Each structure stands twice: as C-alpha cells, then as structure tokens.
C-alpha cells in the first residue's frame, strides 16, 4: 500500500517542489531580505530530493532510519544557519510544515480513495512532524550556542585590568562575582601584576550589585593571591548600603584596605608610592592670562 505513496511522490517531485515554493512564498511570514528566492529554491529542491529519493518501505515508518541521514544533516544545517541569520522560529517551522501541506495535496490529487488517502497522509504527517521537531531542536541548539558564545564574550569583556599609573593596576568588577568569574578575574590580575611589575592593585566593586558571603569570599581570595605575589590590594567602590550589609553578615574585611571610591583608593595608592598630585597653579594661570 505504501508503495503507492512512494511511487506517487517520486513521480511528482517537480510538482511537489512547485507547490512547496508556492506555499512558502504565499505565507506572509517569509522574510525576503534574509534570503533570496533562488537560495530558497535551491534549499527546497535539495530537501525534496533528499526526502523523496530516500523514501522506502522501511524508512517511511522511521524518521530515525539511516536512509534519512542526508536529510537530517541538510535540515540540521538549514535550521542552524537560519538560527544564526536571525530567522524567527515561526519562519523556520513553517518552512518544513509547508512541505507537509504540499505532499498531502499531491496525495489527495493522485488518489480518490478517501480511506487510503487518510491512511497515507497519517503516515506522512507522522514522518514530517518528526522532521519538524528535529528542525526545532536544532534551531534552539543553534540559538543556545549563540547565547553561550555571548556569555563567554561578556565574561571576557567585563574583566579588564587597567594600568592607571606606573605600578598601579585597577580592576573594575561589574556584575556578580561567581566562582567562574573569580577565576578569570584572578588570572588576569595576577598575570598583569607580573607583566607590569605593579605593586598595588585596586579592585573596584562599584558595579557589583550584591555582596553576599560567596562574593566576599571570592574577593578575599583575590586579595590573598595578590598579596602572595607581593602586591598590595585595595578594595574600592563600597557603597553605604553594601557596607551595612557586610557588617550584619559578619564578613571580616578588616585585614583589607577598603575605600569608598576609586578616587580615594588611587589617592591612597599615590601616597604609598610617595607620589604627589599637584595643581600647577602659577603656570596655568600665567597661560590663561596672556
């Protein structure tokens, strides 16, 4: 009985493609600027070929069949590239769903026995639904990869070590200082201390919204590691509400030099390096007076 469907579909490949293209172009969800008509046609043709050519007695019952390996790969490739290009899930989903419509239409046209058509379309629907699910899974995986990559990038971007003066490094920490983050921060900081031969490191936590005991513990770890390298560490950017919270939590930061602002930390650093910042009042005034 299924020989019939397979034969029907094989002999109507051209028509399937035409119908499918029509369906895809008719649905208003297609975004023309993301893909040209020719590209879409090429993709669709490849897919129809991969599906119809590999359809046989066994594979029609099993979407996981090795006969469909080529199709699975094609679909995976298409949905991952669509996820990256910024297609919406609806666009990607209706891509494969509109193929189902085209296939069912052909079946209806070629066979007038309602019962048989029903059985056949049930079979085909099940197969194509599985492919749709596969498309979605891959689409979401593509998106997740994108998110993971961005997370890594954010971690990288948000831990810059700045040399503010000869021998003084500043490290503005933004966001939450979890364990993974601490590792990155510490690595960057220690490496930079060796590279620049700095004696003072300022950790600025103005951009850390919440200091709980885990964050505090990680900060203390960074401070101890810096000390082991022979450098002094100052923690700056402690806001009043954070100070009160730290006291209530019972975190002991008394062994660490802490300052309210980055400016006062810098001032402290200058002092301990016996540097002085002065206004060159006379000269400046002289220049403007002329």
């Amino acid at each position: 009985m299924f020989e019939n469907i397979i034969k029907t579909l094989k002999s109507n490949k051209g028509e399937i493609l035409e119908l499918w293209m029509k369906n895809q172009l008719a649905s208003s969800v297609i975004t023309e600027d993301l893909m040209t008509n020719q590209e879409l046609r090429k993709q669709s043709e490849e897919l129809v070929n991969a599906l119809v050519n590999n359809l046989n007695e066994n594979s029609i019952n099993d979407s996981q069949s090795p006969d469909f390996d080529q199709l699975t790969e094609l679909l995976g490739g298409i949905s991952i590239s669509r996820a990256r290009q910024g297609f919406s899930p609806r666009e990607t989903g209706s891509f494969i769903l509109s193929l189902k419509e085209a296939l069912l239409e052909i079946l209806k046209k070629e066979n007038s026995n309602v019962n048989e058509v029903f059985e056949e379309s049930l079979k085909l629907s099940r197969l194509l639904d599985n492919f749709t699910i596969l498309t979605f899974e891959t689409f979401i995986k593509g998106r997740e990869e994108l998110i993971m990559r961005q997370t890594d990038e954010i971690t990288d971007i948000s831990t810059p070590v700045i040399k503010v003066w000869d021998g003084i490094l500043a490290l503005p920490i933004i966001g939450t200082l979890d364990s993974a983050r601490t590792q990155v921060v510490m690595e960057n900081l220690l490496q930079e201390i060796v590279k620049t031969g700095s004696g003072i490191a300022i950790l600025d936590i103005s951009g850390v919204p919440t200091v709980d005991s885990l964050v505090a513990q990680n900060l203390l770890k960074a401070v101890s590691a810096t000390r082991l390298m022979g450098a002094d560490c100052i923690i700056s950017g402690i806001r009043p509400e954070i100070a009160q919270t730290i006291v209530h939590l019972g975190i002991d930061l008394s062994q660490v030099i802490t300052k309210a602002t980055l400016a006062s930390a810098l001032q402290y650093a200058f002092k301990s390096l016996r540097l002085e910042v002065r206004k060159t009042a006379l000269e400046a005034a002289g220049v403007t007076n002329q």
Partner: protein
Amino acid sequence: MEPSKKMEIIPLTRGTMMVFKDQDVVPFRNEVKEYAERIKMGLVNQTKLITAASEMVRNMLKYANGGLTIIEIVSRGPQSGVRVTFKDEGPGIADIPQAMQDGFSTGKSLGLGLPGTKRLVNEFDIKSIPGTGTTITIIKWANG
C-alpha cells in the same frame, strides 16, 4: 513567634520561582528586588533583603542542587514586608544550632550564610528534616 507579635501575617502578592542553576541567582535577586521596590522599601533594607535571599539561594544550590522559592508581599497590621520561602529536598541539616553558629560550614565557605542571614532580616525560620529537606522562611519589613 514571640508572644507580643500576635497580629496575623497576611500574604498579599505571591510569586514562585524554581532555582536550579547558578544562572538563576541573578534573575531571582532581581525578582526579590522588584517586590521590595513595590512596597517602597529603603535602599539599605532592600540590599539587606537581597543579600539574605542571595545567601539562602546559594546555600540551596550548593547543598540541595536547587529548589523552590516563594516570594510574597505580606502585611501585619500597619507594616508591610517581603517574605521569601526557600524549599529544598536536599540532605537537610542535622544540627541546626551548630549550623547557626558563625564560622561553621560543612562546605569550604565562610560559614556566615545562615547566621548572617538571620542578622540581616527581621524574621527567620528554619525547619529541616535530615534526608527529607529544608524549608527556610525570611521576612524583611519595609521599615524594619
């Protein structure tokens, strides 16, 4: 509860959130912050509440692989506050008085989570059955 506080606590708004991975901590804290802002809690109390909630949720992740959190706006008489409940199905705490001591930790942390949290909030309640799980409830009043 102390006998002097006989007035009933009435829950008003309620939201739940499952926390199962480290990435859930920040959205959870933002949710708590939103509730605190809704009752116009001051910045210092807000920070205390968020830190306490963060502390508890981290414990839950570390020792019980996560669990359920319930955030509520509650009122008692003229006071309004935020109540956060943490329910997990972890190993439980065998000796609660010991766990409430400063500096005691079975993990390698500072051991300030439980006692520190108790100091940060107005009301703190802990129930734990070893092998079954732990439920902790904290309340911070808007001007408490």
